[in-house]
């Protein structure tokens, strides 16, 4: 019996102590009609060796690729020590630290994490994390509406990640909050004239930095405009970029709330999760912040100690009047992120940001030297992603690159009708000059061929020749 330690003698002794003839008798309060027969769609048990073999086959079946996709999840080096320590049983198999005396390790780590995130975002206080970047943004929208009190209209720039906009829509609309899109201008940034017209009467404005296209918004000006219109501001940021770029706390008079996807801080790409969302805010807003928060205090002997605090905001106390239904944070990912940030330090994190920025600039310079490829927003500075426009069908190009072991970027046609020829590319610190050169050579060959003889000869996944 996998993971069940009972011997037949144990079971017999226990049943005798209970006064039951069989284990089945212990289910006698359940109506007989409800007892199900054998499961039919669960396969028979495998041994650890058998499942290991299966998983290894599946993990390697699809091959390995040189990846230039970003779009919300970024390939960064993770120091070996990070997951070695995060998966220690004492972190990995502990529960939410309700019993503070038996959870000082996790609690102190969360306090250190909150300090790191507050500094990174330039804000006063941070919570102990939320599920992921997009759901954190949804929580920030709900929080801003609670703080504002008089309006339920929230401005969401078109330059926010399209999947984030979908998630926010799914989560907040049940509370009759209206999300209003602020259009993007031709420079890949939020159209400031449109924004000025839409701001009056709005509860909050979301400000992505860098935005989904990798472009840098005039975030300080956006905060200024919002504040003049008495709208709250939510900065949506990449944590690596915060080591180089002005963080939300430094935008003009400072954002009210900062949120983002924490994946770049030590979480592997892992097909989309688990990641973690982070949230920080100005100090007066802390009682409307959702999620776990750890505070520093003392014990009965005056020793330094840490505990969950402000729990009166939370569902297990406030029930239907809680700030959110959120129960967990992403503790294990936060453990990894905290160790990750400690290992990199301020210089290391800044160097990752600088390297990612420089490598993307190199990638863009090299790719736009190819005939038929140009930068979509040539006059707008970008961080570590950029939109290219390609004079060949983007899906075909991506398939041809895939056949060469390269994931060339994220096609924008699906989310942005005006960018049918758009490709979002990213090169972090993990990409070398040789990687960029390999991508460029393949792309040049593929694009020159497509431009001359469309449509392509490439018909299905099995046909690898071009």
């Amino acid at each position: 019996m996998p993971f069940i330690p009972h011997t037949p003698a144990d079971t017999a002794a226990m049943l005798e102590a209970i006064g039951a003839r069989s284990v089945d008798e212990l289910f006698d309060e359940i109506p007989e009609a409800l007892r199900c027969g054998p499961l039919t769609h669960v396969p028979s048990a495998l041994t650890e060796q058998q499942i290991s073999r299966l998983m290894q086959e599946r993990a390697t079946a699809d091959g390995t690729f040189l990846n230039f996709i970003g779009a919300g999840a970024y390939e960064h080096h993770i120091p070996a020590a990070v997951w070695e320590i995060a998966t220690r049983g004492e972190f990995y198999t502990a529960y939410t630290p309700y019993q503070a005396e038996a959870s000082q390790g996790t609690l102190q780590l969360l306090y250190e994490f909150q300090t790191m995130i507050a500094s990174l975002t330039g804000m006063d206080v941070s919570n102990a994390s939320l599920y992921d970047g997009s759901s954190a943004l949804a929580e920030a929208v709900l929080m801003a509406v609670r703080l504002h009190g008089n309006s339920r209209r929230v401005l969401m720039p078109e330059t926010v990640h399209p999947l984030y906009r979908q998630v926010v829509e799914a989560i907040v609309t049940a509370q009759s909050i209206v999300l209003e899109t602020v259009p993007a201008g031709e420079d890949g940034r939020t159209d400031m004239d449109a924004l000025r017209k839409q701001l009056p009467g709005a509860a909050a404005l979301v400000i992505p930095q860098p935005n989904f296209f990798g472009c840098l918004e005039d975030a300080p000006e956006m905060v200024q405009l919002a504040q003049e219109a008495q709208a709250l501001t939510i900065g949506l940021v990449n944590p690596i970029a915060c080591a180089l770029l002005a963080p939300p706390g430094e935008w003009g008079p400072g954002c009210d709330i900062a949120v983002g996807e924490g994946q770049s801080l030590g979480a592997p790409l892992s097909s989309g999760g688990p990641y973690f969302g982070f949230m920080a805010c100005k100090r007066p807003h802390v009682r409307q912040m959702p999620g776990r928060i750890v505070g520093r205090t003392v014990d009965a002997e005056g020793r330094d100690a840490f505990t969950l605090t402000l729990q009166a905001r939370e569902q297990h106390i406030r029930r239907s009047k809680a700030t959110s239904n959120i129960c967990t944070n992403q503790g294990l990912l936060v453990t990894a992120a905290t160790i990750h940030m400690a290992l990199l330090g301020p210089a290391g994190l800044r160097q990752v940001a600088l390297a990612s920025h420089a490598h993307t600039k190199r990638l863009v310079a090299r790719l736009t030297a190819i005939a038929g490829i140009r930068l979509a927003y040539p006059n707008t500075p970008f961080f570590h992603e950029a939109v290219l426009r390609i004079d060949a069908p983007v899906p075909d190009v991506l398939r041809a690159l895939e056949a060469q072991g390269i994931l060339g970027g994220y096609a924008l046609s699906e989310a942005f009708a005006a960018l049918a020829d758009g490709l979002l590319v990213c090169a972090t610190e993990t990409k070398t000059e040789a990687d960029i050169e390999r991508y460029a050579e393949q792309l040049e060959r593929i694009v020159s061929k497509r431009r001359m003889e469309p449509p392509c000869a490439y018909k299905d996944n099995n046909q690898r020749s071009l």
Partner: protein
Amino acid sequence: MLIFDRSQPGRVNAAQMPPAMDLPSDIPEALLRRQPLVLPEVSELQAVRHYTRLSQRNFSIDTHFYPLGSCTMKYNPRASNALAMLPGFLNRHPLAPESTGQGFLACLFELQEILKDVTGMRGVSLTPMAGAQGEFAGVAMIRAYHKARGDEARDEILIPKAAHGTNPATAAMCGYRVHEIDVKPDGDIDLAALDAAIGPRTAGLMLTNPSTLGVFDRHILDIAQRVHKAGGLLYYDGANLNAILGQVKPGDMGFDVIHLNLHKTFSTPHGGGGPGAGPVGVSERLLPFLPVPIVGESRGHYYWITEKTRPQSIGRLSTFMGNAGVLLRAYVYARLIGREGMPRIAQYAVLNANYLLRKLAALGFEPAYKGRRATHEFLLTLKNLKDATSVTAMDVAKRLLDKGYHAPTVYFPLMVPECFLIEPTETEGLDELDGFIAAMAEILLEARTSPDVLKGAPHTLPVRRLDEVRAARELNLTWTPPHKTHS
């Protein structure tokens, strides 16, 4: 000591400094960071030692019996972690084409099929990232269902008083009014109260069965019939599925929608408070509303089902595919347990709980629901002990820590005074259970002879009881360098 206290300016981990191409940047000065970044400057060894030592200040399943009721703290097989962390899974980008993730998608598809079978539901979506998000998805689907039928007068969700706090919080997040239903002294729902509450405004009923009181509601078929007759839907909170896995299917009880906590029933780690995973399952009529993405299969090829083919979906709840790595861990666990093993989980979880209940009752601890079977957990009330000795449930809980046992859930459900919700799980053996019983016996004796020992507990942990009031009043949520005042 905080990691920041170990920091020295100018210390750099050269091994973690990426090489960079030296290119000029065109980022305007006004958009660059001005404030210094407050991160520790420590060596790799200092960081490794600091966090290893912190880990040792935790109780965990790997180190301690952890009978935390309603949390299902059972053994998390190491194989689940090792196999979910194979490089091929870890390095895959979430937006990489389906063709590069067939192995990953196959695992998720098969997990969907397994969860459909054990819950008796028609469709499953794996995307919700925690139980609370699964609840949100479930109630949002109930809302979408009524709306699609033009039945928009339904603005109330019924919830038993004993329910998890997430239930009413979720209903409120979905825009519903919450109507709480009383529970009878025997732990079952008060059907008369239900009848009085139910009506044309009822959108649905959220129920955990076995309930948070540790008993199986014997009238579940009756309840389901009444809710359905009134036009409402039935929501199953899967927090306690471990009690009935492979024995009873929520679908057979009449539930229309269910969420599971894979970090409970399917043994994925709790990680110090997440990540969890809260997949949702639905009956036929809610299929169109499931959150996306879902994994589909056609002649051996796996693909994403998205809003394009599910226009009525409640939408996306996570940027990509929920807590994908947690789903892989649950998949590995399900395959290790297999068809034969699933019903055994419920059998031994229930056997362990009933054994503990019987033994603790014999010592003089009072069951909250006398005469009822324990399910996978049971509730004690220490009210009489408190009246006799002034020792509270919290004191007993803290004293258990001294004796090397994590405390059970205390003061939940709120309606039972001085309560202790105890869930041993199936992965604990007889020796461990007997050790816990012996510790409880010692504590009972101490309560009568030297109650101050309990009131001052814990004595042997890194810290004594904390000043929680100070934590909330003098908020100190971040460290700041000594010369500044903290925020």
